[in-house]
């Protein structure tokens, strides 16, 4: 094919413009913001260049609280949701009847508005003057005293946030794992069956190695997604996340940018870059671990 420089760039121009203005330029700009000390949004001036913004953010108690919350969320939700998704996907691929129905139902949370359903979760756990809330009533049957899950002790609030996050991320994981399990070549199972291999052995020696690339893909995207948690927390605890002690790193970034405590794009930028470095580090670790354990064919 002959070269068509002008035409090629013409077709590319709209996309290049959008991506240039709203993705590439901001990437450079955010680095600059994070290094400008004392940047004032209104006057557009700053009085120096350095790492002050990073020091400020890293010593801000609100940021440290957000960091802690985010890490707890990651450590709880990634393993729980991945294991649960694996169990569900194995169950799904072992049945024929009602399978499509189950698959459809399991996927529902993916297409629903996180904020809307979060309000229902809040309602189920909420303890008010009128009622203890459905969850507390059920726990009461087992003899537990009602707990204020939404405005009460820290661990209770964190538990609700973790459970909701798992509920939200499950559809994607189940979908990906189910299609990975289904795409394993049945010849392997047939051969194993002839040899009289046990089910457990078939799982550890055939299924698990064959789906390991997808499993690791889910772990990696799971880590990345959980580190960026924000909407789920807003859905349950409202926008005043610092007051609720449930802020996340992304929440901190937006609070710095906008809202009552906002107007500090430099701090927001520094926090965003810190988040990016954390996510990048974890992803690199994940990738190096996966090299040892994942079987690519």
């Amino acid at each position, binding site marked *: 094919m*002959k070269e*068509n420089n002008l*035409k*090629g760039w013409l*077709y*590319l121009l*709209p996309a*290049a413009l959008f*991506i240039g*203005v*709203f*993705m*590439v330029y*901001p*990437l450079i*700009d*955010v680095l600059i*913001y994070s290094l400008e000390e004392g940047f004032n949004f209104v006057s557009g001036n700053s009085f120096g260049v350095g790492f002050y913004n990073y020091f400020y953010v890293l010593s801000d108690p609100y940021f440290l609280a957000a960091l802690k919350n985010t890490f707890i969320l990651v450590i709880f939700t990634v393993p729980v949701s991945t294991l649960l998704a694996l*169990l569900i996907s194995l*169950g*799904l691929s072992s*049945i024929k009847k009602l399978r499509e129905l189950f*698959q*459809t*139902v*399991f*996927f*529902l*949370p*993916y*297409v*629903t*508005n*996180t904020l*809307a*359903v979060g*309000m*229902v979760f809040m*309602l189920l756990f909420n303890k008010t003057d*009128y*009622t203890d809330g459905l969850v507390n*009533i059920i726990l009461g049957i087992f003899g537990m005293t009602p707990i204020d899950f939404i405005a009460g002790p820290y661990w209770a609030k964190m538990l609700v946030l973790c459970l909701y996050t798992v*509920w*939200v*991320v499950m559809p*994607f994981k189940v*979908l*990906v794992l189910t299609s990975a399990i289904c795409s394993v070549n049945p010849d392997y199972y047939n051969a194993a069956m002839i040899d009289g291999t046990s089910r457990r052995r078939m799982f550890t020696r055939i299924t698990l190695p064959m789906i390991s690339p997808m499993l690791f893909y889910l772990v990696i995207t799971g880590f*990345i997604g959980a580190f960026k948690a*924000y*909407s789920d927390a*807003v859905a349950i605890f*409202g*926008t005043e996340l610092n007051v609720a002690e449930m802020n996340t790193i*992304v929440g901190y970034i*937006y609070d710095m940018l906008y809202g009552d405590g906002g107007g500090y*794009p430099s701090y*927001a930028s520094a926090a*965003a870059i810190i988040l*990016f470095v954390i996510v990048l580090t974890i992803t690199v670790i994940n990738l190096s671990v996966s090299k040892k354990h994942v079987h690519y064919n």
Partner: protein
Amino acid sequence: MQKNRALGKKITKGFTYAGLSLWAFIVIFPFYWMVITSFKSYGSYNSERIPSLIPTSPTFENYANAFSAVPLGRYLLNTLIFSLATTAIMLVVSVLAAYAFARISFKGKNIVFTIFLSLMMIPAELVIITNYMTVTNLDMRNSFLGLILPSVSSVFYIYLLKENFAQVPDELYLAAKVDGTGDFKYLIRVMLPICKPTVITVTILKIIECWNSFVWPRLVTDEEAYYLVSNGIQSIRESGFGRENIPAMMAAVVIISLPLIVLFLVFRKKIMSGVARGGTKG
């Protein structure tokens, strides 16, 4: 021995169905709860110390309230305009770019494509700060332009379309060339119809993404007239209905969730296969 094995299989199957049903229940229950709560009257909801699982005297009053007491109709209309406009612009832009990558050979193509691919790894949080400043400086806060423009670019969809376009055999292109068909006409008349399934998948995924978007709209709109449903729900929760009227809030939640659930049930296969090919939430 044989008998034991058959029994074991049956028991495993029973446990499998029980487990799957339990998860299905956990998934469905919040939806069930919001629907039944939305049919309870304010008075009866607050008098139930133990909430009843079925509304005793169902009422549609909450649904009427959702449209009259808060501007839910406005939010829905805004979200519809935002979703359709963003998706339409995204489609035009991405199809053109994907065609350039798949069909036209030009200098710098490989470099640009590599840059595009590496941009897929950049988290939105990193670019949103500058975009917020850009939109504010351009005086586009509280406007549809400010909402739409930064939401258009989707490197992933360009990639998806490019992969699909590249599968269309070269012979068709060469035959069209012989007939004197230009590139643009070829793209519209031949390429798009052949790749229609992918185009539809991309369209639906983008609409879902737009309908549920929360962070960007929250940053650039603080006037109710430009709220999308996510922000609308948040403001209803914090100030609407006197904060205490849970049944009315649930009616609003049902109305907001319904369009996407219907869309999902209609395009179930397309959405699920599209997401399985590499979409992530949000």
